């Protein structure tokens, strides 16, 4: 599967080319189609509170502070099913996620390494502004 980088606007300065991918989160409460930022620097995927609530994920399990570049925030931890499809390729698996419990923290969906990067051989092609996901067989 190949996805092109998207030029995301900034308040000041030129747009920033960003590796984003479309996927579906399937939780006990709802299924939501989102475009997420693929973040190879993140240990684990991160969801804002409102998406965690809508999906019906736990807001109490694994509660604790989570350190990020922007500082510490309170998070809970759960698992959610992700589905990613392009053409004839169709993959679905569970990943761990942290849910940011601060309602004022309006963050995009970040897909980090845990549970996701093991599923694919992932190439960030900065020159061609393209992400390639090649499914790997799990041992």
């Amino acid at each position: 599967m190949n996805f092109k980088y998207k030029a995301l606007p900034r308040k000041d300065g030129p747009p920033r080319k960003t590796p984003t991918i479309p996927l579906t989160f399937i939780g006990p409460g709802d299924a939501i189609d989102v475009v997420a930022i693929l973040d190879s620097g993140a240990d684990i995927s991160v969801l804002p509170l409102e998406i965690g609530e809508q999906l019906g994920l736990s807001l109490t399990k694994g509660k604790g502070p989570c350190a990020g570049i922007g500082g510490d925030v309170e998070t809970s931890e759960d698992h959610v099913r992700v589905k990613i499809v392009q053409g004839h390729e169709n993959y679905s698996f569970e990943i761990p996620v942290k849910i940011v419990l601060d309602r004022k923290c309006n963050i995009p969906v970040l897909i980090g390494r845990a549970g996701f990067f093991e599923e694919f051989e992932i190439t960030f092609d900065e020159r061609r502004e393209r992400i390639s996901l090649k499914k790997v067989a799990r041992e």
Partner: protein
Amino acid sequence: MPTNDNYLGYMSADLRQYVGEWVAICSGKVVSHDPSFKKAYEEAKRQCHSKRPLLTMVPEEDTMIF
């Protein structure tokens, strides 16, 4: 899974006016936007009827990065 229409709509959309907001795309077009995911999502579901909208957040400069 996001429909191809919605993903192509996202890729071609000019998101400059939505910095700091959630944007919902249905049938390839932006149908709602709001700083609250829930408000953007509910309005999009109302407009999309049986179709599922595609949601994305346009991050601000100071968005927390993990």
